[in-house]
């Protein structure tokens, strides 16, 4: 076993271990972060980097090009798909108001001052009813009446 092979193995070990550590922090982040949006950060960035490091380490350690091509494909698809799934989950989470607003500094997407959540603090179940159901019902009735009147006026 030559010195070059030892160095190559050592590099592979370092890459594999640091990749595994990063994947571990991704799991820790899912436990420790307060809401869905921040958890998706933990689920994308350290995890993708960890997978990439593991792929590079494995490519160094494994012999033969066919394994390397496969690992390259895994890395490419990981980088293509992880942001998309994180985006879809966080978009749904935002629309279902699974947002800890007390942990937000600013929210420029949330338009209108009067629609702020008063009761919910984030992390409600997915089928949580709207805040203050009475008010929501009144709102929808008012909308319905207004639309009905507009239809009458048009007809």
């Amino acid at each position, binding site marked *: 076993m030559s010195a070059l092979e030892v160095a190559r193995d050592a590099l592979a070990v370092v890459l594999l271990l640091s990749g595994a550590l990063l994947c571990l922090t991704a799991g820790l982040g899912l436990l420790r972060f307060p809401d869905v949006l921040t958890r998706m950060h933990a689920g994308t*960035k350290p995890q993708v980097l960890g997978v990439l490091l593991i792929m590079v380490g494995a490519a160094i350690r494994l012999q033969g*090009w066919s394994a390397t*091509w*496969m690992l*390259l*494909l895994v890395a490419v698809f990981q980088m293509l798909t992880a*942001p998309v799934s994180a985006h879809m989950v966080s978009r749904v989470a935002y629309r279902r108001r699974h947002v800890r607003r007390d942990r937000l500094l600013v929210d420029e997407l949330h338009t209108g001052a009067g629609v702020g959540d008063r009761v919910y603090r984030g992390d409600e179940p997915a089928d949580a009813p709207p805040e203050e159901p009475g008010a929501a019902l009144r709102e929808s009735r008012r909308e319905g009446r207004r639309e009905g009147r507009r239809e009458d006026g048009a007809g």
Partner: protein
Amino acid sequence: MTTDTTDTAGPVAHRFRHQLPLLIWLVLVWNLLWGTWSWANLLSGLAVALAVTVLLPLPPVTGGSRLRPLPTLSFLGWFVVDLISSGALVAWQTIRPSGIDRSAIITVQLRTDSDLLLTIVAESLSLVPGSMVIDMDRERRTLALHVLHVRDDADVERQRQSVLTQERRVVRAFGSPAEVAALGTAGRSAA
């Protein structure tokens, strides 16, 4: 400009030209999956790619489909640097005892008007500098992002600037000359 030249070539050639990058990509994936280069793999990959594109047609991606070698290298280099630093940062925030700082949701006005470029910008933003795309308004070209690790308004502005920098890198690497020019004028009028 591009539609004029392709319309004269007929609808089949038009479709084929737009599907060509996808075809090449599918053949490449097929060969990578088999792990060895051979004529049999190449031909069977071509058959599978043709079947996939004919049976499951996708709308063509138009605009911004060129590659400048040097800016592309710079974009990829920064991408790797950002990927490593943001991964390390988020990993550190998960394990440190004090937990995470406050986060923010910001909207950024982009200057690009191409589906492909906006997709690349959004994908790379989700992976790199501590930000994640929540929503995108295609009509107004605004991007809503959730950013980790903001303490005050200065941090918010810094994140906004880093998003615009990322957009500039992507457009310089893959955009058409008109798009690069639009980038420059928009930047000057904003400054």
